[in-house]
């Protein structure tokens, strides 16, 4: 994790604030920071999105490519997650410095997307055992401002919402199978992301837990629980991170908070995405990728 350097006095200030449900930037313990979301930002991808959560900046591009299904999942397409921690974000990422964090983020995304209800992978299969769509989901970390996991999962969900895969028609001719990929930009297949999860990270600071910890707050936190929460509040994956340990009863409380916050996050994310889709081409570009 990218840590901010904090003195003991600053840490005490943050911890005491959180006890009184008032954080360093004035938020309550269960509030997210302001989030900016935009889809369709990179033209060479099948789906893309950019999320800016305070100072955390993440760009996701999805490329759909044809490939062969994995032998043990022969009637399904698959998702491949790659995270790139760019040295633009912090000089610590130079060379192989960001590799550990990158693999942690991609492993967590694999974990929360590893259940049959999240994305209908069967729809990505074209010919069982032979051809399927493989979605290469590339996550580029442009700036670190805390809470990378949540921001990455929101960006992935938004990019999947934006995803447009060309329709493929299969014709069989005397045992020869032919694939025809439609080149009409409007003849496309989309992925239903309604039930895809978002990651909610709960950081234990002092005796309380907070969502969407800023970089300074992350420096005060010894243990955090990351949950993949679907729109119904079911948990699709869970992981504890950090060098501290947690009491069983506080994990119970964190699960409840995670469920509540996760449902709200999924709901407002989907509403914003649908609103953006409704505005269509009329909407102006806001980000740096104008």
């Amino acid at each position: 994790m990218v840590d901010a350097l904090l003195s003991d006095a600053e840490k005490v200030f943050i911890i005491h604030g959180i006890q009184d449900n008032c954080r360093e930037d004035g938020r309550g313990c269960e509030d997210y920071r302001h989030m900016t979301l935009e889809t369709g930002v990179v033209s060479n991808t099948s789906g893309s999105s950019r999320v800016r959560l305070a100072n955390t900046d993440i760009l996701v591009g999805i490329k759909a490519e044809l490939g062969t299904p994995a032998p043990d999942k022969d009637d399904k397409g698959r998702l491949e997650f790659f995270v790139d921690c760019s040295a633009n974000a912090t000089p610590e990422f130079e060379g192989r410095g960001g590799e550990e964090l990158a693999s942690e983020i991609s492993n967590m995304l694999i974990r929360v997307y590893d259940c049959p209800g999240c994305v209908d992978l069967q729809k990505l299969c074209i010919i069982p055992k032979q051809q399927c769509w493989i979605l290469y989901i590339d996550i580029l970390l442009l700036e670190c401002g805390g809470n990378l996991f949540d921001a990455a999962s929101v960006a992935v969900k938004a990019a999947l919402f934006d995803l447009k895969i060309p329709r493929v028609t299969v014709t069989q001719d005397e045992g020869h199978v032919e694939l025809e990929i439609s080149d009409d930009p409007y003849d496309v297949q989309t992925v239903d992301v309604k039930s895809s999860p978002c990651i909610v990270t709960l950081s234990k600071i002092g005796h309380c837990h907070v969502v969407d910890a800023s970089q300074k707050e992350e420096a005060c936190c010894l243990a955090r629980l990351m949950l993949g929460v679907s729109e119904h509040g079911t948990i699709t994956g869970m992981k504890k991170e950090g060098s501290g340990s947690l009491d069983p009863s506080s994990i119970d409380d964190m699960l409840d908070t995670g469920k509540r916050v996760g449902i709200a996050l999924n709901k407002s994310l989907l509403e914003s995405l649908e609103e953006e889709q409704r505005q269509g081409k009329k909407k102006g570009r806001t980000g740096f990728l104008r």
Partner: protein
Amino acid sequence: MPTDTRRIGGPEESFSPLAYTPTDSTKTLMVIYGPREVVRKEEFSMKGQLTCEFKYATFSCSYRRQHQQDSEEKDFSVQLLEALEPAVCLHKFPKAQVNIFVEVLQNDGSALAASITCASMALADAGIEVYDLVIGCSMKIHEDKVLTDPTVNEEYDSQNSKELNHGSITIGFMPSLNQISAITSKGEIQIDFLKRAMTDCVEACQKIYPAMQQTLHTSIKDKLTASER
């Protein structure tokens, strides 16, 4: 019985700081080095460092594994490290490191849980100061049933599962501090089931605890009689 764990074995004496935990058929081999000097000079720290490397032996699973660590093994290494870190008195060996290497020789499910238990026993056996033992335990959630210590065929697999309430959970539990040092889950599970499985895991860990104490006790006794001779 769904609530039974399989038999757990104890430390072996062939190498010195080493534990070998054969449950019925998951076999993990654990070697610990240290505390020893940190090789890389730039990483100065007043706290000791702990490193973990988790590896499946190439022949340990039903299909052949590669020599290089894959992403699952890297993920397990991190989880093992995070399970053990809260338990080890790192301030007792400043500027030094302890390296833990885990090799799963035969995988029949619950490999992470087995290696957490095994590693904490090995740490204790190696005489490294710890606040508490860490006990690993796994549960499979199958609709309304919760199964303790799943075998490889029972473990969660996103391929053959239905949508809701099929999954698995693994915890690392420190029994005398009553703290959970690691917790992970897979699969889409409702929150109530998850909580129930967690409670069951904690209970199972408390059952394993006396067995671990007993094993460590015997191992120390054996060492003493050996040194007297």
